[in-house]
């Protein structure tokens, strides 16, 4: 029985290494290209490692393109969406999981129905609303619709349902208000679900491309994800510089990810299993 498992182990390792190579190599190739001279970048047959590492490619592209501004914008927008969405969803999820009121189930089904609707349906109305409020070209415009995404309502409702009802009933008998029960007892108990949800929302906001592209037209009011699309459009001649831009916009998040990979991956996996 052990023998069978062992003979299986080597092919598993080989296949996984192959899959990992296909996944990681494009990133490594981007990094290597970003450190070459133009002549090295387009040389055929390709040269794997640059002769002299051209760190100046990073200086050149950073001078042409406002990465710091875009990172700051992204950070602000992600913080607004994650904070806002967690608050809105946790409150609503608590009401749906714990409180009794007329029409609760109908309302919940309506909110559930929203999950079935592709996001693009709302883009034109969102555009009309935001422009009529004169908010276009602001960071707030980027965050606003995302704050009311409903996915978290289900996810956190599930989390609240796993906590024994006796907990809040006892607190209620002791004279705590619903607000206190929610903030002091229930939210701390679903902390890990909140973290998972926060990671997922941050990732969605971080990678979102179309909404920023539509609502904010000036580069200094975009997130990195949408701003980078401009980079692709404008600077395509010098491959090594574009690659340096690609590295600047993906390396920091990769480093963060490697540090917190357990939380991030398990968080995302848990939204799938319970969803």
């Amino acid at each position, binding site marked *: 029985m052990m023998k069978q498992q062992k003979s299986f182990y080597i092919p598993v390792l080989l296949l996984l290494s192959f899959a990992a190579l296909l996944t990681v190599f494009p*990133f490594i190739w981007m990094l290597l290209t970003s450190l070459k001279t133009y002549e090295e970048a387009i040389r055929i047959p390709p040269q794997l490692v640059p002769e002299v590492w051209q760190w100046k490619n990073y200086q050149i592209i950073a001078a042409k393109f406002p990465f710091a501004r875009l990172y700051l914008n992204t950070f602000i927008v992600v913080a607004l969406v994650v904070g806002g969405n967690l608050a809105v969803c946790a409150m609503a999820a608590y009401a749906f999981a714990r409180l009794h009121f007329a029409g609760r189930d109908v309302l919940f089904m309506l909110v559930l129905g929203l999950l079935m609707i592709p996001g*693009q349906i709302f883009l034109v109305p969102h555009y009309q609303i935001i422009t009529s409020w004169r908010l276009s070209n602001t960071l707030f415009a980027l965050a606003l619709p995302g704050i009311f995404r409903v996915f978290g309502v289900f996810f956190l409702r599930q989390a609240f349902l796993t906590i024994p009802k006796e907990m809040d009933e006892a607190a209620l008998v002791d004279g705590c208000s*619903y607000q206190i029960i929610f903030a002091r007892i229930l939210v701390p108990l679903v902390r890990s679900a909140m973290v998972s949800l926060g990671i997922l929302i941050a990732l969605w906001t971080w990678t979102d491309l179309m909404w920023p592209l539509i609502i904010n037209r000036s580069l200094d009011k975009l997130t990195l994800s949408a701003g980078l699309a401009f*980079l692709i459009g404008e600077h395509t001649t010098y491959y090594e510089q574009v690659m340096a831009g690609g590295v600047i916009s993906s390396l920091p998040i990769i480093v963060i990810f490697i540090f917190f*990979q357990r939380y*991030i991956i398990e968080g995302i996996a848990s939204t799938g299993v319970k969803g």
Partner: protein
Amino acid sequence: MSRTPHYLYKQERKAALFFLLPLLVGLGVFYFFAFFQNVYFSFTDLGSFGKPRFIGLENYRRLFADPKFHRSLSNTLMYVVLCVPAIVILSTFNAFLLSKLQRMSTMFRTLLFLPAITMPAAIGILWRWLFNYKFGLINVLLNALKLESVAWLSEPDVVLYSVSIVLIWSMLATQMVILLAGMQNIPTMYYEAALIDGAGTMQSFFRITLPLLSPTLFFVITISIINVFQIFDFIFLMIRSTSLAIQYSSSLVYYFYDRSFVAFEKGYGVAVSLVLFVIILIVTIFQFVMQKRWVHYS
């Protein structure tokens, strides 16, 4: 709870309103109102300026006659047919391999997950470079094998496949970790029992893993179909919008974007998005009906 005094019920209702208010206001404005406004817009000639004029079913009539719309629709179906099976099979396979590793599983999982945390524009940058006609690594490798270079991002017959490759590459990761978590939730006693009965690895995969994984698999298939139906990013990022190739790779969402926010024919664009909505709705309902046949909930 049955003996709760009346005034407490009233308090509870008040509290419910308090907790639901932020969501209800946001949803009311940004989703419910927006949805009906969207349906209304599809009957108008909404553009960038001026008040929209009601034009009845004109936008829908135009859709039926519009070859670019037909093309986008058939391209989108092609993407779904090509990418969904590839994503589901490959991510199940990778998850299965990961579940068989004791050591190093975390390292491989981390590496394989990288595309999921990378923004689409960065993925677009690196794949455009790999697909580059003259200097791209893929063509260089083809040439080394004495094969001819392929114009991955401009040849009309090829672009849809190029975009599909990138989509599959980038979407695998998330589905893989969801499936892996599902596999790890299967109690080991089933496998031990199978091992005692002399079942091999393949047998226990098809007889134990797959059936017990079916709820997660159902989730992954549903999400993949919905996501691929909404493909936009990589078309936008990799295919030149002015080239002929765009027609051969354009999806419904890309066409919606192009009409609404490039040509500023929002009324017409909205009609395109509503067609997508109806298609996704039908497919999702169909899946939920079919799931009774193959999904086993324990």
